[in-house]
């Protein structure tokens, strides 16, 4: 079948989204006031380490001043990557079509 890989990928991503919605519903219900779910795994690890009394000995040279600016840089990172992938796949495909 021609689109077997696409169909499998679609099903896996859909299953992932459904599992997320279901777990999110139950997590949100059990959340205490002011608590926030879906934090980063690295933050959780930091909590464990800091609870043992460890203080990071150096802090980042520059930190994004707000969540918005942080998401700007993350989007920029994805955009640069997507641009390169799209450009070269387009280049390859049109070359193939021309030959």
């Amino acid at each position, binding site marked *: 079948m*021609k689109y077997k*890989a*696409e169909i*499998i*990928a679609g099903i*896996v*991503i859909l299953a*992932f989204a459904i*599992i*997320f919605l279901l*777990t*999110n519903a139950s*997590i949100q219900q059990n959340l205490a006031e002011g608590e926030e*779910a*879906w*934090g*980063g*795994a*690295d*933050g*959780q*690890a*930091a909590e*464990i*380490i800091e609870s*043992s009394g*460890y203080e*990071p*000995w*150096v*802090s*980042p*040279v*520059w*930190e*994004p001043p707000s969540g918005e600016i*942080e998401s700007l*840089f*993350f*989007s920029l*990172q*994805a955009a*640069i*990557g*997507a*641009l*390169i*992938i799209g450009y*070269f*796949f387009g*280049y*390859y*495909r049109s070359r*193939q079509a021309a030959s």
Partner: protein
Amino acid sequence: MHIMEGFLPSPWWQIWFIVAIPFLVLGLYQLKKLFAEKRETIPLLAVAGAFVFVLSSLKLPSVNGSCSHPTGTGLSAILFGPFITSILALIVLLYQAIFLAHGGLTTLGANVFSMGISGPIVAYALYVAGKKASLNTFVNVFIAATVADLFTYVVTAGQLALAFPAPAAQGGLLGSFSAFLVIFALTQVPLAIIEGVIIALVFKYIIDVRPDILVKLNVLTQNTVNRIREAAS
């Protein structure tokens, strides 16, 4: 998710730099050779690097209520081997450490080792073994990429456990290893599966447009390419 700035005490951050540097030097050497001898593969190298860029920028929610991101290193490890991949991972980790305060400059050595070296070595070894066992190419790519992603975070957990072993009453080194493993590797399982599926899909498109480069890089044999193209048409 990488080890954050300042979260590796001396001597661990220096040790991981020392461990990572030989791999990076070998990667630079291989890259130089690739540029000199196989110039037509450079666009594909850019695509593999861009792939690490995109995937490691996507923080996805996992089943246990926390978020992490895939690594995307499996594709480049299969195409170009683990050493060149370590250079690509270094570029991405530098970007994230400088602009995003994600990961860090002092923990760069440890993060390059987990994401750019240990994961890709596993991906490459699994792919080569699967190819020898004539496993279906896409299944093989899926397994290699998924396990590489997962293994990266097993190594991260190990690095943190070595630096922060729990007191003996709480299980010592193994106790803290399993604690970090639950945080990093468990979160990563669904994300690793998604990454494997997507890399297998991209692999299909590469076979579609430039099978000759895959043969040239010794990723696939001409016979396999012919068989896959016949099955697809």
